[in-house]
């Protein structure tokens, strides 16, 4: 049975909220999120598994041709779902400093 997507009011942990914020800010793979948030791999990857399980984020593999062209292994990218975006909005209200810690791309360019 498919799990019910989390509602926007769901209270995320600070770690999960930071990961959502990092994804929203354009850091779309595990290692870049680690770099951005300063969290260790043992925290970031399991948190992303849980967020994906709860359908707040979604993953997809980079095309092999792109990776081959850059002579590196392909990466798994993550992006926010609609439910994830709504939850992130709610989390920003709960953690007001979130946007200052990891500014989004628009905020960075302003």
């Amino acid at each position, binding site marked *: 049975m498919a799990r019910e997507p989390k509602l926007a009011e769901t209270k995320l942990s600070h770690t999960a909220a930071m990961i959502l914020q990092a994804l929203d800010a354009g850091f779309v793979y595990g*290692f870049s999120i680690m770099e951005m948030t300063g969290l260790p*791999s043992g*925290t970031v*990857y*399991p948190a992303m*598994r*849980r967020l994906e399980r709860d359908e707040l984020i979604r993953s997809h593999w980079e095309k092999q041709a792109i990776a081959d062209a850059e002579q*590196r*292994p392909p990466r*798994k990218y993550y992006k926010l779902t609609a439910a994830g975006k709504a939850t992130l909005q709610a989390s920003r209200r709960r953690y007001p400093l979130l946007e200052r810690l990891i500014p989004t791309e628009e905020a960075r360019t302003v």
Partner: protein
Amino acid sequence: MRPSSDWAYRLLHFGLLRGASFLVPTEQREEWRREWRGELWHVRQVCAPIGCDSRQGTREVTAFCLGAFQDALCLRRADRRPRLPFAAMEGTARQTILILAATLAASYAIALLLPGVRAERSLWARGVNPNLVLIEEAAATDAARPSIAPEQFRSWQGRRQKFFDGFAFYRVTRESVEAELPPGATSDKATWGVARASSNLFALLGLPVRFTEPAGVNDEGLPALILSEAVWKREFGADPQVAGLVLRLGAGTARVAGVAPDGSLALPGNVDAWLLEPNPAAEAGGAGYVIARLTPAGKAEMWAPSFRIASNTPDDAEDDLLGVSLEQWGPGPGALYGFALLLALLALPAITTVSLGESSLNPRKTSWSGRLHRWSFLVAKIALLLPIVYFVSLDLAYGFTTLGRENAAYVQLVFTFATSLFGLRWVLKDQRQRCPVCVRRVAHPAHVGQASRTFLDWNGTEMMCMGGHTLLHVPSLPTSWFSSQRWLYLDTSWNFLFAGSTRHVP
């Protein structure tokens, strides 16, 4: 960083990821490895690029790889499907089948372990020659005691027989037994019940002797000793190489020639070993047992389980003998079981209705697969119950050798009848109280209505399917308008009662 240590670290990191990957569920493992290998490449590029000697960077890469274990454990925990606890199985068809299967396995295992049951099954599996009879004095009060004198046996052997074409004699004595060892060595003495028997005894009985020596090995001319299976196991640890061992029996010696199969000791006399001699009745001594084989003419004449035989003693006096068919120990456990089961089936309608209470089932509410499931469950219950009854009856009847064979047969008959009867009654009653939708047993019986003095008011018991599918009405007093149980299918308005259940209303 030197190239050799660089490769050592790379090998370490690869090993860490590989090790962690074994914690990941199999179906996700390949993709997990692919993602972590890709990420590791990028981490190395940033933290410890080739040619850059950075211990800090290597430590960071190692820390990154160690984090893979937490990720793998997270996936492993998430993959653990919720196991169905035993409490959640309460009343389900699966629980009933599991309990019956476990009972069957336990009763079968006990039947395999009990030597009495094993011997009985082996004896009846082999079958007894219907032409074999045990001859005893008609005046003998106890059939288990020997009653034929050796002189009498010798006189029969010397005469031409019309009704018998083979005789074997054996006499049981208690003798001390010890292994013959080289001078100086010591061995334990034991006392066995040794039957000094005619050398044709096993051929006459048709019993195969196991673990025999190849022909021509015993050239010492020692008499052959056949061990009983119990003694072979107890004294020789079931050694298959026991044949050829020379034993001291009382004043003489004998060579072990093989092992008699289980069940051969059903002959009277507690025999631990059979010493085969050309003419055991040659010496005067105590009485013994005589086994005889009937000719076809003899079988036609003496077909009853036991019959009188008129004979003459060696001094020409009249002797009254009794021939007891070795078959007369009655039908085997299988036949007894079948007979008792038939009786139970005949008696079943007297103690319960054989209806399954399905007349009120709505065919539109019960699917074809649901009906098949229900019937399969009924068949499975019966198929498990019947062997349980068989094996438990064997365990009880033949597990205790002190009962004796005749008493054991009675015990088996009575037990099989009672348990089959009440077992089948339980099967039908249980089936009537199974929800037609989920085959789960209905629960929480509630008495409804008032006990009627005029027999006009309805009263009875209602039980609810815990899956929320149905309600069962069982009338206390069957009336012309409500004579048997009825099922009521619950619609969605009952959902509030079953919040959290996996309810599916067809």
